[in-house]
């Protein structure tokens, strides 16, 4: 901003910057910078997907997520409802938004728009809420009332190796979201957050006293 002001100075001689500052230009630059900070870098996807995800059922939508280059807020909300409830019965973005915000999974203060690309921090916060991951001291002290809530949630998921190292304001790819959903669902199953048959293959549960693999009997 200082360089911009200098280039617009018409004093014509070497003078301290403070004398040659044009107040109106200075405040204009200040307002523009502040707007950028407030609005962030969120914007819609540049390319439209090959299929309309609204035409897909929940299983097809999960396959679509794996192939999508970037994920919108609406798609992320749908994915989170599938993760939380096993299915999404909502009719549109407004209904999904209302459901997630009423349950504390998403926050209205984020002011996310349906067609904008979702960021990693918002997604991480929602996953932590659904999987009942409480986080550390910072997350409890500051994140609980909104200060750095998304950043701390993302750091918590990175610590748990549910996502790779990333920044909280970067865009989320479909592959990232798909991988995160898989791990989150496995964690939910482990914690018993939904009813399941607990089908697994582990050293603890599938080996006999000699260490040999136990082969399940034929159901026929």
């Amino acid at each position, binding site marked *: 901003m200082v360089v911009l002001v200098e280039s617009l100075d018409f004093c014509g001689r070497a003078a301290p910057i403070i004398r040659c500052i044009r107040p109106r230009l200075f405040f204009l630059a200040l307002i523009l910078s502040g707007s950028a900070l407030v609005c962030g870098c969120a914007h819609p996807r540049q390319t439209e997907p090959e299929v309309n995800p609204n035409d897909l059922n929940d*299983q097809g939508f999960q*396959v679509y997520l*794996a192939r999508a280059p970037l994920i919108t807020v609406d798609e992320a909300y749908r994915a989170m409802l599938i*993760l939380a409830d*096993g299915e999404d019965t909502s009719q549109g973005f407004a209904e999904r938004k209302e459901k997630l915000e009423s349950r504390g999974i998403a926050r209205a203060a984020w002011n996310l728009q349906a067609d904008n690309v979702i960021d990693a921090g918002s997604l991480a916060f929602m996953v932590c809420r659904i999987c009942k991951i409480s986080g550390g001291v910072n997350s409890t002290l500051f994140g609980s009332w909104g200060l750095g809530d998304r950043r701390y949630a993302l750091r918590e998921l990175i610590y748990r190796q549910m996502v790779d190292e990333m920044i909280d304001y970067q865009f989320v790819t479909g592959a990232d979201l*798909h991988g995160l959903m898989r791990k989150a669902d*496995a964690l939910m199953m482990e914690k018993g957050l939904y009813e399941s048959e607990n*089908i697994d293959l582990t050293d603890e549960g599938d080996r006999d006293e000699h260490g040999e*693999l136990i082969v*399940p009997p034929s159901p026929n």
Partner: protein
Amino acid sequence: MTKNFLAAATLCLTAGFFDPSIVMGQAGDGAASQPAVKTGELVYEVVEVGGKVAVSPTGTDAQMKEGWTPVAKGQTIGAGQQLRVPTRSRIKMVARPADPPTVILIEQMTLINIGELAMMDGAAHSRIQIQYGAIKAGVAEGTSRSDMEIEAPTATLSKKGTDIFGFEVQADGRFKMFLTANGRGLVQGIINQSGAFGSSRMNSRFLTPGQWITHQMIRAIDNVQFDREVMVNDIYGLKGVDQLFTLLNNHGGVGFLLPVGSNTPGFLGGASQRDGLTTTDLNTNPQSGNNLAGVLQTSTQIRHVTGGDFGVGQGSLPGFFGGPPKLQLRRDCGTPTGGLCKPGTPIQAGNFTRR
């Protein structure tokens, strides 16, 4: 003739009914699209299933609803079919007939295709392609061998007599392969890399039980902290064969101090032909010299090597163990066990003598 004709027709129909090559029925609802399974072929039998697992012939678009049928317990899955496992779903299958059989678990959010599945030359041959998701399997060796490979877009897992191993793949190619802590055998992880004239396999690593690798092909042992005990061998506390074994394998943990060529005997102060100081000892004391055991037993002095194994001549070691003396003598030379001293060595060999 009519009787003969009827008898022949009856015989043909009866033979056809009991022909073992006739298609075996598939259990479960929605099994109309299942392929024929002939006796002798290898199939995966579903022993446990939960959620909304669906199966379809290879090539069906996984995003679409059409072409997919739910999988039920007891159903068989064969080559040329793909499985779509969404959230809150899992499926466990057993390869049959095989002795011992293979147990496979496909976790949620997974899409796999079974490319090949057959008994070939006495081995259970299977090739599975995983687009994304996670798969775990236990393959024990028995009367028949098991040839199993799981291929992902960027990597291939080849098992070598193994149980229980896992393969997690993300849609963008990132992956993780692992062998459980109580696993047996080895798993070979192969990175697929495209060459100028098609794909070629490069960069493979073997995993031992408890290890894992990711798309960076870095062993867990390089990354995991506090995950396993590290034995720090005390070369001075160990004796005899234990000491010898430790030194031969890791130079007692101080291999980084060795000069170029890792002249272990020289480092430990033992006789080395190259240093020219112990020719007498070599000739008279069979325990010294090139016999490393003899070196360890008779000499505890850290010696400095004036030349490396390959004549690089790195000179003396860093002064970690003290300044380099010009000449060091065997402490016990001149004694019955220490052998003769070098010419010119003082008779009082009990003390160090420096020139």
